Structures are given as C-alpha cells and as structure tokens.
C-alpha cells in the first residue's frame, strides 16, 4: 500500500537534467581552454610588421579596416539587416511616427541640450583618433547613437526627421561604401579590399565616415523602432 514515495526535488527534473548537461559542457570547455597551446606573441608581431603598410597607425584599427576589412564589412551588413528586419517586423518604413516617451522633466531636457553637442564633437574626435590610438568608426558611431537615443527619450524627433528613403540611404551607406571600395581595389587588379599602396589612409577614412553614419543610424533605429507609435494597434 505504501508504494514508492516520489522524492520531490526543489527543481524540476528537466531543469536538473539541463543543469547537468550544461555543467558538463562548461567543464569540457574550461578543460579545452586550459590545454590551448601557448602561442608566443600570437598575431601581434605579424600585425606590427605590416603596420607601416596599413592605412591606419593603430594596430586594432589596422586589423579592423585593412587586414580583416571584410569582417568589418560583413558586420556592417549584419547591422543593416537587423535594422531593416526590425523595421519590417514593426511594419514601418521610417520611425517618423513613433511617439517619444512621456516627458521626463526639465533635468533630462537640460542635460540633453548640454550633452548632445559635446557628444557630436567627441564622436568626430574619436573618429579622427582611431587612425593612431584606440577609437574609430565603432566608438564614434556608438557615441552618435547614444546622442540620437538621448534626443529621442527627451522628446526630440531624433532620426524621426529622416524619411523612409533617407533612412534607408543612411543605413546602407556604410555597406555600399565598403562595396565600392572593394570593387575599386578589384578593378585595379588587386584582391577585394586590398588597398593600393599610398591610398589606404584616404580610402579607410572615407569608408570610416560612411560606416560611422550607418552604425549611428542603425543603432538608433534599433532602439527607437520597438516603441509604439501612431498607427500601431
């Protein structure tokens, strides 16, 4: 009559089983990482060696926009696809009709007025700095995106001022700039994004400018688009 009494665990058996599996995976991963062969210098020496040929004086910028520029190009592609996908999911062509959040008070307005112009200057400085020190298109675009979001949450129109076509143009600008430069290098008989000597700096700056705009507009779009607006059910 007694039967076997089921032991009640504080967690479900599914959670427990998943826990055991993921914990084993974690241990295997940690074990693998500890057995990695030590690679003295890694790619540092290689990057330093070719740095004079690169169009940027800072190794990270050189890797991002010269040695492995196709990584950065496709990354911009991911950002553009995500922004266009988010717009499509929210059934929008632009974010012009998205309602800004309710006013948060005079402090936010005042701070926004003070900070946004400084952020624009900082973004330009970071872009220029990227050629020889930590900085570059990403940091610059992120600061600009933060300014765009700040403008939006304090009731400004932010990137809502861009019509659908202009928003799309700003979004794909960085991707297209990379594409054109890539085609240009191929037209001169070199590999894709293998800049001819002497032109690397100028091409990188041109691409970085377009990429900065794309990153700033893309990130701001991704933030703004998920909010409700007029015309939403």
């Amino acid at each position: 009559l007694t039967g076997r009494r089921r032991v009640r665990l504080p967690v479900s058996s599914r959670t427990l089983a998943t826990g055991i599996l993921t914990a084993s995976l974690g241990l295997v991963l940690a074990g693998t990482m500890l057995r990695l062969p030590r690679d003295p210098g890694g790619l540092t020496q290689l990057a330093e060696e070719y740095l004079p040929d690169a169009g940027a004086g800072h190794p990270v910028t050189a890797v991002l926009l010269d040695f492995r520029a196709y990584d950065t190009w496709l990354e911009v592609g991911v950002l553009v696809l995500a922004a266009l996908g988010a717009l499509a999911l929210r059934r929008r062509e632009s974010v012009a009709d998205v309602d800004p959040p309710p006013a948060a008070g005079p402090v936010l307005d005042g701070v926004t007025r003070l900070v946004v112009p400084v952020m624009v200057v900082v973004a330009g400085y970071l872009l220029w700095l990227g050629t020889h020190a930590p900085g570059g298109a990403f940091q610059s675009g992120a600061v600009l995106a933060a300014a765009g979001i700040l403008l939006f949450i304090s009731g400004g129109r932010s990137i809502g001022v861009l019509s659908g076509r202009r928003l799309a143009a700003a979004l794909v600008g960085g991707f297209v700039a990379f594409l054109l430069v890539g085609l240009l290098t191929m037209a001169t008989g070199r590999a894709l994004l293998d800049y001819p000597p002497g032109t690397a700096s100028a091409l990188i700056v041109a691409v970085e400018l377009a990429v900065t705009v794309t990153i700033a507009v893309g990130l701001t779009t991704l933030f703004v688009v998920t909010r409700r607006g007029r015309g939403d059910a």
Partner: protein
Amino acid sequence: VTPFLIYSVLSALLFAVALHGLIVQPQLLRKVLALNIMGSSVFLFLVAVAYRNADPAPDPVPHAMVLTGIVVAVSATALALAVARRLADETGLDRLPERDEEQP
C-alpha cells in the same frame, strides 16, 4: 594561477550558466538576456587570449574580433527584441506557447 586561467575558466562557466538559462527560462526576454551573456563569455575568452599572448601589447586581432562581435551581438539582440515585441503585439504572450498548450 595566471590571469588567463581565471578568465578562461570563468568564461566557460559563464557560457554554461547562460546556456542553461537559455534552455530553461521560458520568457523570451530572459532567453535574449541568456544569449547576450553567452556572447559576453565568448568576448571575455577572446580578450583573455589576446592578453595571454601579449608580447608587450595585447594581440590586436582578437581585440578587433571582440569589437566586431559586440556590434553583431547588439544587432542580433535588437532584432530578437523586435521579434518578441511583435509576438507580444500579436498574441499577448511573453513566451513561446508550450506544445501542450496548443492542443487543449
């Protein structure tokens, strides 16, 4: 105990914890957060590798990969949130329907 040992083991554990959360947590927002933590654990590992191979300066290639990865992670997160928002608008759910809920 080297810094690389601490950071790499920590990143492996963080990855496992986040994967567990991704599977077990039903709410989509928590799944997105778990995915983010998984991404962060990979970034932590890449930064640790860059530092471990440091000759005097950290290896720039893993650093550039982390920078690239951050933008991709942010984009994927935002797209996932847009999907979750659309699902919430259409169905009022904050999670995917369970299989047994679909057949009453």
